[in-house]
């Protein structure tokens, strides 16, 4: 009987599959927030690309001053952190609470590594005289990356809460909306960085 239930859940009956094809993971409220955030970043990305059209020489010369290797490492770190969170979700769906806590901790450590690397990069930028009021590129670059930095910081706070709740046994295979909600926010932050990295560090 137990085997039958597990198998049915794993494969999914037709109504169950239909149900699974409906809901967004996590809380709907966070998805409204995610779409709003994506819209803001999207407008800023297009504004950067349009501003570059009339200042190509300036954007190319300033871009050459950036720590592009640092940007690459940060991208690899954030993608890995997203992977950890996706694995945390898979673990809790299989009721592996301890594994879920470990994956969440892995994501937290990688998020912290991103922040440390970004602080070092901001320090390098300050050393070479970059500031918001210096030119158009600096204004866009510093605004976009610092705005994103604050989002990673927020995501770290959310994952800290998730780790705490997981260790206290608040989540299980049946109840893990909190983990899906927090993970969705983190993945949004990663998605924004993927586009930001290409726009600011790669395209020239």
């Amino acid at each position: 009987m137990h085997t039958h239930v597990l198998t049915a859940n794993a494969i999914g009956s037709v109504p169950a599959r239909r149900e699974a094809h409906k809901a967004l993971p996590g809380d709907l409220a966070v998805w409204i927030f995610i779409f709003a955030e994506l819209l803001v970043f999207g407008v800023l990305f297009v504004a950067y690309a349009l501003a570059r059209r009339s200042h190509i020489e300036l954007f190319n010369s300033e871009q050459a001053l950036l720590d592009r290797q640092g940007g690459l490492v940060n991208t690899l770190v954030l993608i890995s952190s997203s992977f950890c969170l996706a694995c945390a979700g898979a673990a809790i769906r299989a009721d592996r609470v301890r594994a879920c806590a470990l994956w969440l901790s892995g994501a937290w450590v990688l998020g912290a590594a991103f922040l440390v690397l970004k602080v070092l990069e901001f320090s390098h930028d300050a050393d070479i005289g970059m500031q918001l009021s210096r030119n158009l590129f600096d204004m866009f670059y510093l605004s976009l990356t610092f705005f994103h930095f604050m989002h990673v910081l927020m995501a770290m706070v959310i994952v800290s809460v998730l780790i705490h709740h997981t260790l206290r046994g608040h989540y299980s295979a049946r109840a893990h909306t909190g983990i899906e909600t927090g993970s969705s926010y983190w993945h949004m932050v990663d998605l924004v960085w993927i586009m930001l990295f290409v726009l600011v560090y790669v395209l020239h």
Partner: protein
Amino acid sequence: MAHAQHALPTQAQRLPLVCCALLLLTLLSYYGLNRFPERSFVLLVLAAMWLKGQLLVDHFMGLRTVRRFWRLLMALYLLGVTVAIGLAFLLD
């Protein structure tokens, strides 16, 4: 029971593959596409960016199995931003 254990992790088993694809596409964008002429370089880098975004949305965010409306909304966003950036970089 063995069947159930086999069926459960299939979605999770895809995650390492997706992660590897995302990391490889990032490295390819950074190191591998520089040798192409400017216009092709921009197109290829943006195509890789769109693909990475779509992989992340489908597999990490888990939108692959949700209602079509949400998937379409996210796909349109990714495509819209990618095309807008592409036009700004490529149109004279």
